[in-house]
């Protein structure tokens, strides 16, 4: 089974970039492909992202879900090609008409979809979620929210695993999901989520005892042992990002 989409430790430039600077660039990339209505700009961004994967030694081909997203992108592109009729016709086969505008729209939509997905992949694969949370807290996010994020990061795989166990336990007792009755489906849903809810409540109790027992929330602020370093490279990346955002804003205003 392929690994899940999760942080892959490494030492590439992207791995070493400050999580907030990297997050900023990811958001900028996403904004760019939606704000600029040119398939060539979108293709350029997609090309850069595709190059970034091997440079960051991130195993895109080995991560779960890539095939699904690639298929979805192709499907979205194909729908545009088939149903958008704009500009000169390139192919005519009976009722099937493919126009230059349709091809352009297909490339544009598929590439935009891939850009958004792959940018997120790149960020997740190269960013330690812990560094992100601590980076946000050091940047001023109240620590209660920062630890809410850390707790969520910690518990998501736990609940994923527990969900799998509950599903298997149901299979072992002959529960079958191949039903068409909405009432039966609701019952099955309740039977699936109730054990998870009970487990979650138990974990919340334990976590509350653990956090309170270690003085979480005693003071409005706290100290941090962990350093999330901000290097010259990070400053340069942030400065470039500001320039990029300004340029994009200027282009949008002029257009």
């Amino acid at each position: 089974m392929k690994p899940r989409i999760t942080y892959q430790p490494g030492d590439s430039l992207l791995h070493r970039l400050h999580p907030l600077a990297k997050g900023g660039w990811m958001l900028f990339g996403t904004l760019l492909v939606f704000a600029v209505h040119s398939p060539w700009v979108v293709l350029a961004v997609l090309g850069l992202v595709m190059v970034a994967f091997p440079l960051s030694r991130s195993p895109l081909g080995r991560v779960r879900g890539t095939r699904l997203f690639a298929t979805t992108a192709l499907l979205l592109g194909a729908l545009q090609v088939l149903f958008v009729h704009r500009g000169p016709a390139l192919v005519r086969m009976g009722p099937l008409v493919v126009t230059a505008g349709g091809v352009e729209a297909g490339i544009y939509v598929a590439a935009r979809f891939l850009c958004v997905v792959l940018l997120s992949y790149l960020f997740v694969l190269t960013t330690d979620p812990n560094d992100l949370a601590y980076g946000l807290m050091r940047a001023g996010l109240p620590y209660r929210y920062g630890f809410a994020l850390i707790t969520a990061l910690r518990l998501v795989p736990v609940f994923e695993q527990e969900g799998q166990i509950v599903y298997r336990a149901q299979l072992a007792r002959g529960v079958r999901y191949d039903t068409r009755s909405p009432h039966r489906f609701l019952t099955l849903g309740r039977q699936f989520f109730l054990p998870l809810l009970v487990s979650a409540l138990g974990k919340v109790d334990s976590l509350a005892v653990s956090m309170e027992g270690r003085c979480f929330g005693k003071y409005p602020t706290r100290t941090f042992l962990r350093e999330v370093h901000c290097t010259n490279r990070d400053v340069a990346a942030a400065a470039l990002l500001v320039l990029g955002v300004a340029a994009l804003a200027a282009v949008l205003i002029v257009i």
Partner: protein
Amino acid sequence: MISIQGLSFRFGASPRYALRNVNLEIAASEFVVITGPSGCGKSTLALAIGGYLFRQYDGETAGTVTVAGMDVRGVPIYDIAEVVGLVQQNPEDQFCTLTVQDEVAFGLENRCLPPDEIRQRMAWALEVVGASHLVGRALATLSGGEKQKVAIAAVMAARPQVLIFDEPTSNLDPTATAEIFRVISHIRARAGLTVLVIEHKVEVLRQFAPRLVALDGGRVVYDGPMSAGERVSESANRQVSESANQDSEQATHYGTRLTEHAPRNTPHASRATNHGSRTTHPPTPPAVRVDDLHVGYDDVPILHGVSLEVGEGEFVALMGDNGTGKTTFLHSLLGFLKPGRGRIEVLGHDMHRVSTSRLVRQVGFVFQNPDHQLFADGVWQEATLAARNFDTLDEATQARARDLLARCGLGDRQQDHPYRLSYGEKRRLNLVSVLVHDPRLILLDEILIGQDAGNAAMLLDLLCEQVRQGGTVIMVNHHPDVTSRYASRLVFFNDGKIIVDAPTADAFRQLAHLGLQAYLPNDHATRITNHVS
């Protein structure tokens, strides 16, 4: 250090008192072991001493709890936490961060200590628990024992005067259990703390000659020394109530009752070879035949070439450290995990050709956590859920369900919601609900976790009866004494491979030769030691 006077507590709308008129005086530096059957109030007592019971839970309270001169009912938990540290049962549930350093530093950062002091205390706490080498690791990559050490270090770093361990080894294998008890003893010697350990495995703690407090039904039924030379049941029996005497009897036959069942299992067991991972072919088709099985998760191999044959009517115990592939093996048998390589046959069905939904009609599977396998709204519905799903709920099956529920003490709880049952009752219901449709093969994954001797004996009795009627049981467990008395054969996993597969007595001899002392039953370890000397 700790003074508890007339403490009674009842949760929310519960008609039953979790604690009833508890009186205890615990001096500084004392080492106290608190024990008793599941649901007797041990963990509630720990929560009371830490003050959590009165802040985080609704309920009716009487009496007082004073720790280091503070009345815990009138003081914020932050202040009590400066004196009392609580290490909970499952380290996973108490971690607040993702890495070892962050976890140990967490409480100190919350106290606004400067980074230099945090570093100093973190180094000290990790060194005391023997976990300095874990610095830099992500918590998710640690073994169960390592996680528990980090959880202890995280509490120790705040330098409390009282340290409470709430069943710190219930999820651990014998090797890790021995290591954690060694750490607790070391902490006590090194830091001079008052230590309270809530534990079922009291025999293992006897070497530290602690004071023993036994609870039953929320009351203290024994409070006295647990001397190195006498059994717990003997010391407890002197002054306990009638109920405690019953528990003590159960504790005694926890390890002996199956001697009457054992001969039935041994003929099958005798077919096992003493040194390999294969048995010779039994005359009847095997319940399970596994050949060169390779299974992994997320590209990480777990089982490497496991081969095993289990005959019908065998009671096989699977043992080994956490993470060595026992659970993966069980899950593979029902088709929950697809093998990378190898062949599995269950009850004559090739797993490549049969669906899990068809196979489960003849196989019962009890998972580790009781709460993960309760789905119905009532005890009766839960007990008969599988039979209803299989359309086999006839008069005979209903009669069998009624009989099993009655024998498990759940006869008058049939209308209750399963989540209203105690932990031990839930576990019994889990087993009843897979026995009702009379499976030929029963797979059990650590069903004895958190069980007191009485509950464990009850569950094991039901399993033995199933074996007597020709059923086959494969049970993952961490209790050498249980394996010794109840199982006919022991299969030991190490690093995804079977390294011992033999009738239990022979298997324990092999484990002794391999230096796996933590996996030997008490009497066996003593006998082997005497023999060697």
